[in-house]
């Protein structure tokens, strides 16, 4: 797993950089060779600002400054939903998306799985985690085992809790849908990257009478989850979920840094609207090229 962790960390670097790669879209091609990509300086400045904001709030959190976080109903419902499964004597189904571990959505889904597995271990509720990629399988198995150890229930850990079911999208969907109708899990949790199968899974879970909590950062799949699930985490809430469930001030500091960045972007959007409305900031100005890149 050490190798897997190293890959994850290196992928995180890539994701961080690529998250800001949109900033460089409007840049011109370089004609002369230079060591640094001058067209990506705007991305560098944004990354630096963002990192500074996150580190600042994390530092404040370490010093014990109180940080307010709004309630996320979907996450508050997780423990209640697992409790319901325990009372009914039925399993909890957790799907960490259907993408590979090099996607940040999957990493977020896997992180939340750790928290959910701790709760299921405490309640001694059966957990089923179907996955579509072997790397997710390896990471998920490690994570769930650690969660059971932390909960002091190592002997109850079943290695096949996290299982590889199929490599193809609709083969995976068929397998999981069949499981839902046969086993009728009391709680279905979908957290991660979902595509066309989102509604197939959520509607099947709804038909099976399960309480459903979903979270995805893909806007095109959100309406399906909202229509078919009891709670839905939208966009950034998915990435915040792990920190939110941890109740650790240090991790919450990262979320506050993110909020500061959001305020800066909102101010930039308002400035852009004002400039565009008054006819300023037409082609060629620094603000417009920067703003379009953002």
């Amino acid at each position, binding site marked *: *797993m050490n190798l897997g962790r190293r890959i*994850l*960390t*290196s992928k995180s670097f*890539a*994701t*961080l*950089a690529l*998250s*800001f*790669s949109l900033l460089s879209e409007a840049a011109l091609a370089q004609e002369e*060779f*230079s*060591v*640094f990509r001058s067209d*990506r300086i705007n991305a560098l400045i944004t990354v630096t600002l963002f*990192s500074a904001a*996150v580190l600042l709030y*994390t530092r404040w959190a370490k010093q014990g400054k109180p940080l307010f976080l709004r309630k996320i109903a979907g996450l508050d419902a997780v423990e209640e939903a697992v409790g319901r499964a325990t009372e009914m004597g039925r399993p909890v189904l957790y799907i960490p998306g259907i993408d590979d571990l090099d996607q*940040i959505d999957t*990493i977020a889904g896997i*992180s939340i799985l750790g*928290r959910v597995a701790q709760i299921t271990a405490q309640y001694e509720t059966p957990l089923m985690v179907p996955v579509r990629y*072997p*790397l997710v*399988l*390896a990471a998920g198995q490690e*994570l*769930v*085992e650690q969660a059971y150890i*932390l909960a002091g229930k190592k002997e109850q850990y079943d290695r*096949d809790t996290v*299982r590889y079911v199929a490599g*193809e999208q*609709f*083969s995976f*969907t068929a397998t999981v849908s069949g499981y839902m109708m*046969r086993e009728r899990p009391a709680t279905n949790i979908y957290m991660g990257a979902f595509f066309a199968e989102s*509604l*197939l899974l959520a*509607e099947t879970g709804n038909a099976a009478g399960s309480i459903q909590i979903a979270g995805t950062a893909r*806007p095109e799949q959100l*309406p*399906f989850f909202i*229509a*078919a699930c009891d709670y839905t985490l*939208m*966009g*950034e*809430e*998915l*990435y*915040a979920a*792990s920190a939110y469930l*941890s109740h650790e001030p240090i*991790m919450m500091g*990262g979320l506050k840094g*993110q909020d500061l*960045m959001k305020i800066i*972007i909102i101010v930039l959007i308002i400035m852009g609207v004002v400039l565009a409305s008054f006819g300023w900031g037409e082609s060629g100005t620094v603000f417009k090229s920067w703003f379009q890149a953002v």
Partner: protein
Amino acid sequence: MTVAFFLNEKTPYVGDTSNVLLDWLIIIGGFTLLLGVVSILRVSAQAIQRKKEGWPFKIATIASVLVMAIPSLLPVSWSPLFGRFEGSIYDWVFVNLQAPMMATMFATLAFYIASAAFRAFRARTAEATLLLLTATIVMFWRVPIGEAFLNLFPGDLPYFINKFIMNGANLAVQRGIIIGAALGAAALSLRIILGIERTYMGRG
């Protein structure tokens, strides 16, 4: 990789680092496929051994894995039925069995959309009524007969629906979610890089 992102790809030693690392990832990812195969075979074999409900289907699962995997791994020089080219066993099973089954699964989505829409579009509150009206207008606009009907009225109604609903309210909300999600992804990446977030490794 972050540093390499800001450097020219032609910079000696460091410029191409990220591409090299990504190549390594692909190679390692290929080997991990074995983990998945072992997992699916073990779970299925246990179900057969314990005669769990539906165990005959597990025999079909194991047989399918073997039928797809073994002939595709054997060299084509032994027989044209081996390998993954046209005319091979792998190709025949994929084209005639797997692809139609996946297409069937995808096709059922239409029925699921209908049932979800029926539930979502019930006009129980003012917001739900607004959603119902908007969805009706957009669906009407998206089907040819609806567009033909809208064109009977003066003014370019389809153009206004596209401009104000799809490229106006809808796009604005989507962009808001995308910006928030991009920041959330970047914040999570930072937490992982800095070692603040370690839950993906099973640490609290």
